[in-house]
């Protein structure tokens, strides 16, 4: 994606076509994720498709529109690594939610 010469520090000047292509791609991906719902795709396939389209869209926005792809590695690390610890929170809360659900089942459905 980044054959363009490294721009001057902190200066993000890229050809207009890059933005227009990404813009179009975001439209197409959004249409795909809406279609997942419109055509009632269910189960594992639905969740997989939702996550894939979501990550593709998020990646394009951060990398191209927010220029992260052209930033230096130190800034990429500083911004993109700390949110990874949120995965721990999500994991714990999923386990905790399952536990609460089972406890409620044991307590109320007897």
């Amino acid at each position, binding site marked *: 994606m980044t054959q363009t010469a490294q721009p001057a520090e902190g200066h993000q000047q890229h050809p207009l076509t890059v933005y*227009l292509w990404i813009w179009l791609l*975001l439209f197409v991906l*959004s249409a795909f994720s809406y279609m997942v719902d419109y055509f009632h795709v269910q189960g594992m396939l639905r969740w997989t498709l*939702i996550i894939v389209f*979501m990550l593709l869209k998020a990646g394009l926005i951060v990398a191209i529109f*927010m220029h992260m792809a052209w930033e230096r590695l130190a800034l990429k690390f500083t911004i993109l690594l700390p949110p990874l610890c949120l995965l721990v929170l*999500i994991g714990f809360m999923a386990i905790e939610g399952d536990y609460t659900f089972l406890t*409620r089942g044991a307590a109320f459905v007897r």
Partner: protein
Amino acid sequence: MAHHDHAAALPPLKQVAADYAADKQAFPVPWGKAMMWIFLVSDTFIFTCFLTGYMNVRISTMDSWPNPSQVFGLHLFGTEVPLLLIAIMTFVLITSSGTMALAVNYGYRKDRRNTVLLLCATAALGAMFVGMQAFEWTKLIMEGVRPWENPWGAPQFGSAFFMITGFHGCHVTGGVIYLLVTARRVASGFYDRKGTYETVEVAGLYWHFVDLVWVFIFAFFYLW
């Protein structure tokens, strides 16, 4: 303890000031951009906490979760179109992200007129998004959705919905104001005198982030 550099010999608070004010820079980007990125990281944590809380109550509830596809469907021309309003809102926000990216691009070309026009277009699309969200909230409140109850199932649906979309809507509203202030500054020639339009890119970072958060809300709250 014999070999100190001169900063260590200063009284503690002077030393802190000397360290923070020292002439060193970690990231070779405009300071506003670094600060905006750090703010956005903190905002990422806030929105993730909301979405994680939503995930937790949705997993743990004993009642069935209301089907968002129907709840957010619109009745048009005698047929029920699932999730229509949300789909339109998604496209409006993505369109605004595109115009924002172009505004930043024209800013770096020092094209004042087009930058202002594109910033105003972005703000207008953002305002349109907030308007549709107000319509959606009104519709749901009329149908009896409250933070503690709703007609279709798990009572946690309402609190998750109002918290997550409300907080995001506040971000969009703030962003519209931010963009209009920036557009006014561009129009006044402020950045031409300053010699750089990088502040437009900083505003763009915030706006793209608002779109980014919507990508996650759309996937996890509306489609899941």
